[in-house]
């Protein structure tokens, strides 16, 4: 850069844009600095540039210092209002969301477990139903036993040899036996 800078200065007689920028920014180049000191026009331009920028910077500093910030409490209140309106990113909010998700997951598990239990219970015969079935079976067996006892009594009654009555009507024993119904016993 310094070599090119020297050539440029020699050709044009004044600082190039790059040299000017370097000097104005305080990034000194020996040849440019020497020229800046020696050449009245370049020096004047450098001073004008530096002066304008300094003035502007001073005014900007004064302005920004006059814009006293709100107290942090006020800022936090303003920020929380803003966060309510926009998407939240705070840690506490994240924790709340995580807790909500966990609670929702727990609720789903609880409902699922209840549904599963209910389903299992529906397929297994409940003890009361079993008791009812046993009782019912018992009643039925008793009923059959009673029926059979009745049939036996009937068979016994009709199987008695009532000779007087048969004789009175002229019936034979063989015919009588054929005419008699054979009541069968009920089986379970």
């Amino acid at each position: 850069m310094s070599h090119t800078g020297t050539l440029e200065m020699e050709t044009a007689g004044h600082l190039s844009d790059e040299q000017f920028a370097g000097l104005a920014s305080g990034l000194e180049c020996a040849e440019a600095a020497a020229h800046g000191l020696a050449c009245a026009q370049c020096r004047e331009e450098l001073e004008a540039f530096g002066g304008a920028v300094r003035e502007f910077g001073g005014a900007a500093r004064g302005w920004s210092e006059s814009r006293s910030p709100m107290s942090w409490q006020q800022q936090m209140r303003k920020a929380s209002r803003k966060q309510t309106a926009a998407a939240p990113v705070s840690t506490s909010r994240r924790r709340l969301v995580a807790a909500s998700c966990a609670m929702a997951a727990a609720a789903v598990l609880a409902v699922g477990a209840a549904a599963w239990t209910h389903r299992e219970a529906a397929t297994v015969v409940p003890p009361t139903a079993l008791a009812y079935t046993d009782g019912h079976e018992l009643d039925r067996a008793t009923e059959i036993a009673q029926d059979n006892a009745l049939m036996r009594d009937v068979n016994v009654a009709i199987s008695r040899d009532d000779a007087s009555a048969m004789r009175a009507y002229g019936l034979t024993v063989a015919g009588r036996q054929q005419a008699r119904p054979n009541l069968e016993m009920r089986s379970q």
Partner: protein
Amino acid sequence: MQMAIGTSIIHLKERVNAISELDDIDELVRLYWPRVLRYVTFSTGDKDLAESITQDCFLKAYNGRASFRGECAVSTWLIGIANNLVRDQLRLKKFQFWRKANATSLDVTELASFLPSAESSPEKRLLARERTEQVREALEGLSVNQRKVFLLKFFEEWTLDEIATMTGMPINTVKTHLYRAVSAIRSKMGER
């Protein structure tokens, strides 16, 4: 050996101070608010937006203070956060529209009222005001990166290394932006 230990102890103390500085949010705001606000205002060209971004910047810094390792100055860290916020804002397309339609740019009259009072004569004050307006206009004509680098160098007086850290640009890129910005402003000032 003792010197090395002494240096590392000093460095450690600086880091501890910087980290504890972040815990006192009111002091943090008091110290750095004007600097961040000024930088953001002239970066975006919108003072209302700048207030909002500056506030976000301090909120982010305070909420993320645990991630600050004290490897740079607090102000450097804050400007880095502000830079990211400005960049995000400038990327928004709707901002591009509203910026043109509704930007609350800093009025030169407002700015000129903060010019040094040494410019006592009305003529000098008028000239100073005109120069301020020239610089403001020239700044608006710069690209975003040129403006950032120029502001950080000339108004905040940071070194090129520090600017490179804050903006995440290589130092040669910083230098190029700076030179172009100076040339553009010089050229704008020479127009009148």
